[in-house]
């Protein structure tokens, strides 16, 4: 962990990504305290009328929605599902992908053939339509989004980890372990895994950004978790109520937040990739 932080700190863009991610993490933690209003509450003027579509003011820093809800509070609370889906899906995706890649690359032969053909098959699945149909079957919700993402997205990680494993498996240290009597799984977990871990970490950061984008997209299509306020759902509400033409304060912030969080994942991943594989540095 220490070395990861050191590595990120040496690259300025990577550091920017890390700081950005840290800010979002902090916001997610303090969101319930920091949010000035209940994000779902309808706010009223003192005279009893609804605070509808009001531009930013001292009471509502980012204005209000058509239903009189506070945009800033929604934005702050939206940090939580975004980070949750992003981090949890990334862990699942990279976990599955790393295992498939390690097993295929280490055993080779028909095991490799079988696993790689399955990987190739998953490349034929149109992801967003698949997630959409799954959401319709299992019901909209945050767990089902994570399931949809995990079922398909491991394919990229699996391919990369496999080729890395194949380049490692005939190295002397693996031979040495084998001669010393280590079993297959011991070699995979004790000797190969630590060597592919840096690469897996790169994919962890990249997948996080990608999963956040998927959550937002599904919510925008109307398959978000009905119990949660998320950035994608804010944009869905804004779009479907035709408010986007008048309420920029409602439309701009959620998209910007998604872009920045996805960017932070990309910057961390890219920066760590250069350190994990120094050949990429130009």
């Amino acid at each position, binding site marked *: 962990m220490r070395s990861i932080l050191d590595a990120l700190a040496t690259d300025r863009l990577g550091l920017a990504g890390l700081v950005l991610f840290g800010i979002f993490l902090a916001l997610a933690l303090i969101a319930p305290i920091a949010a000035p209003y209940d994000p779902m509450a309808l706010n009223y003027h003192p005279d009893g009328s609804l605070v509808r579509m009001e531009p930013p003011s001292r009471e509502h820093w980012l204005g209000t929605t058509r239903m009189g809800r506070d945009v800033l509070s929604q934005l702050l609370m939206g940090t939580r599902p975004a980070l949750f889906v992003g981090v949890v899906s990334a862990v699942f995706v990279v976990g599955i992908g790393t295992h498939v890649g390690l097993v295929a690359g280490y055993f080779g032969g028909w095991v490799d053939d079988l696993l790689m053909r399955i990987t190739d*098959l998953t490349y*034929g699945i149109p992801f967003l339509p698949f997630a959409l149909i799954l959401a319709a079957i299992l019901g909209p919700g945050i767990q089902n989004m994570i399931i949809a993402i995990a079922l398909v997205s491991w394919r990229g990680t699996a391919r990369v980890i496999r080729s890395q494993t194949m380049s490692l498996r005939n190295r002397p240290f693996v031979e040495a372990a084998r001669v010393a009597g280590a079993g297959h799984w011991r070699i995979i977990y004790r000797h190969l895994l630590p060597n592919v871990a840096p690469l897996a970490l790169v994919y962890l950061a990249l997948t996080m950004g990608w999963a956040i984008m998927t959550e937002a997209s599904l919510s925008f299509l109307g398959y978000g978790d009905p119990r949660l306020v998320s950035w994608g759902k804010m944009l869905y509400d804004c779009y479907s109520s035709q408010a986007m033409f008048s309420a920029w304060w409602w439309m701009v912030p959620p998209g910007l937040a998604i872009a920045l969080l996805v960017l932070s994942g990309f910057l961390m991943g890219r920066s760590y990739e250069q350190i994990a594989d120094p050949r990429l540095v130009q």
Partner: protein
Amino acid sequence: MRPISTRNGFWRFLLRRVAFGLLTLFFLASLLFVLFHVLPGDPFSMYFDQGFSQQAIDELMHRFGLDKPWWQQYLLYLRNLLRGDFGMSFQYYKPAIQVVGERFWATIALMAASLAIAFGLGVIGGAWMAWRRGTPAEKALGVVALIVRCAPVFWTGMILLSLFSFRLGWLPLGGLRTPGQPITGQWSRFFSLDFLHHLFLPALTAGLFALANPLLVMRSSMLEVVKEDFIRLARAKGLSERAVMLRHAMRNALLPVVTLLAVMAGTAIGGIVLVETVFRWPGMGREIVMAVRARDYPLARTSFFLIGALIVFFNLAADLLYGYLDPRVSRD
């Protein structure tokens, strides 16, 4: 002897890839069957509320083959697929393939236009970035492309829509063409000014979203090429820097970008679903969203299958192009 064996190798490679593409289609079809078979409730439940008699229900179930055991339904389903029969759309009450067929070309037109924008801008911009390497303007372009890439494509679409269509009123708010315009034939349907007017903004949105890839690939490819001897030779001949870049470097740097095009055509489809929804573009992506919402399963299934078939096709094209352009890629 050698050319013949290489040619044989190529045909075998081609055959294997095509066979695998067909296997992928079979996999997609089976996946769809499983997905829709476990769907809770039967697809008619929403129609039954309207006071159908039990006899009418049985009649309908029988008509759509829903009264048979699952494996018979599966075999029937596969047989029908092979015949090009994708079932009836519940909403439109006509063959689903016919409904999707009308949407197919709208999607293809949007995809082609957006890829043309992404690669046109990417090739020129990438070459410019390599030329102006290290300047603040070059860095700024890279950062902007990256941020657009990280922003949700539907949000970019919403912003462009409110800027250019609503505020400035330059472009239409969505759809394929102005309602009430006469359609004189298949040609004018897709090549009229009105159509291009409607196409511009959605294509730009999807194109800008896809821009970062060709831009950065072209940039690094150019940086590789300018190190080569023939560029030094061209410079030594006294050609202007502009001529060296345009005539010698760019042309040779294009190869990796061409390969990328085929790869990206396959992945661009996910974004197309969102762009079509924002711009109410009547393509397959928007149709699948609406079909799932309306529980029109045959239509959703057909759109999904055709989108999958497009991906399989482009992946195949990418593989072949890659194997053809880069002989180091193993063909066995």
